[in-house]
């Protein structure tokens, strides 16, 4: 049967178009306008052309922040995804343990980002922090304020603590949707634990895993609040990610033109990555 075609239905999306225009399109247009101009305040602008983009693309500071961001995203994905799957596989599927585990898993997700940063900033301190104090007591020299390596370890552990739960909950949702008949058939065939995981559980989790990877990648690529609260981008620039660099340029130095150019390049990268993930996900759906 043919679908009813009625172009008046487009009016139904008008409210959301107006909303998106005010919340996204108009600010984006303003950023584009700023990116080709210079300002010294008082709403006075001077044409700068492509100067800020050229400066940005030849800036070591920008590329170093980009590399840090990519490295950070890949490290946390490499930890959070396998760890999330492992925890989800070992969570109870029946009984009183289910709500207990679900609540425990949801707790880190309920904490605001700046509070998470503050918790870990205090937790990692080697004078009053539980983690910092005892790690040093074990004879390991740990000081995230002075040592870049320690700062990275702290931020990665903090992110893993904060966000692995999301992967766990998504994987768990995928796992509980597998009918018992699949496991019974595997048992009759004498399938090993690995075979059950490889041929039953993993395929059933693939869709939610893609969503988890997409969400975690995008979120980690845009991370700002937690590392800013814990390290402020330091020591030196060792944990200065793109978003921190952007805020320093825009609000710290009040260089609106260069900051706008950086925002646009950052936006284009996010747009490209989102498109890649979206395409992978929708094509995977279509294949199924």
């Amino acid at each position, binding site marked *: 049967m043919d679908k009813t*075609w009625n172009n008046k239905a487009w009016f139904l999306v008008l409210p959301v178009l107006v909303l998106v225009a005010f919340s996204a399109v*108009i600010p984006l247009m303003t950023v584009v*306008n700023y990116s080709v101009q210079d300002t010294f305040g008082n709403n006075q602008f001077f044409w700068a052309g*492509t100067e800020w983009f050229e400066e940005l*693309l030849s800036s070591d500071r920008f590329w170093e922040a980009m590399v840090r961001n990519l490295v950070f995203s890949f490290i946390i994905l490499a930890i959070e995804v396998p760890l999330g799957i492992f925890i989800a596989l070992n969570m109870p599927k029946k009984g009183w343990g289910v709500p207990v585990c679900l609540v425990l898993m949801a707790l880190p997700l309920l904490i605001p980002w700046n509070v998470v940063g503050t918790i870990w900033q205090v937790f990692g301190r080697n004078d009053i922090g539980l983690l910092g104090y005892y790690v040093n007591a074990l004879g390991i020299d740990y000081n995230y304020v002075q040592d870049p390596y320690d700062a990275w370890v702290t931020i990665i552990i903090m992110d893993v603590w904060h966000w692995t739960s999301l992967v766990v909950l998504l994987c768990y949702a995928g796992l509980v949707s597998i009918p018992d008949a699949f496991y019974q058939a595997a048992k009759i065939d004498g399938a090993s634990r690995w075979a059950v995981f490889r041929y039953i559980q993993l395929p059933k989790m693939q869709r939610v895993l893609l969503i988890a990877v997409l969400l975690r990648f995008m979120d980690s690529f845009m991370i700002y609040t937690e590392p800013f609260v814990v390290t402020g981008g330091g020591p030196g620039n060792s944990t200065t990610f793109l978003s921190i660099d952007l805020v320093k340029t825009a609000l710290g130095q009040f260089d609106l033109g260069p900051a706008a150019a950086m925002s646009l*390049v950052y936006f284009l990268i996010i747009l*490209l990555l989102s*498109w890649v993930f979206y395409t992978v996900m929708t094509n995977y759906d279509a294949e199924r």
Partner: protein
Amino acid sequence: MNLDLTWMAWTWPTAAFFGTILFLLCGMAAWEFVSPGGNPRVGVLRFETTRGDRLFLSLLGSAFIHLAWLGLVGSNLWWALALSVVYAVGVFRYV
């Protein structure tokens, strides 16, 4: 009512840029009106794309072509624009 848009810091080149995007979107809407359905097909990327996907890929790719030109060649962007047009034609023809 006096609509003051000076805070948006408009310039003629950026207005022309957004005007072109608006023109392209209107053109796509007219194309869709004349030939509904989005002309979905599987091209060189081996997955289905519609006209809208192809326009998105053209615009996104053009942005990166311009950035690459700025970073690697110089600030004269007319050649980057020409390259982007060739790229967009290629996307609409083969993707």
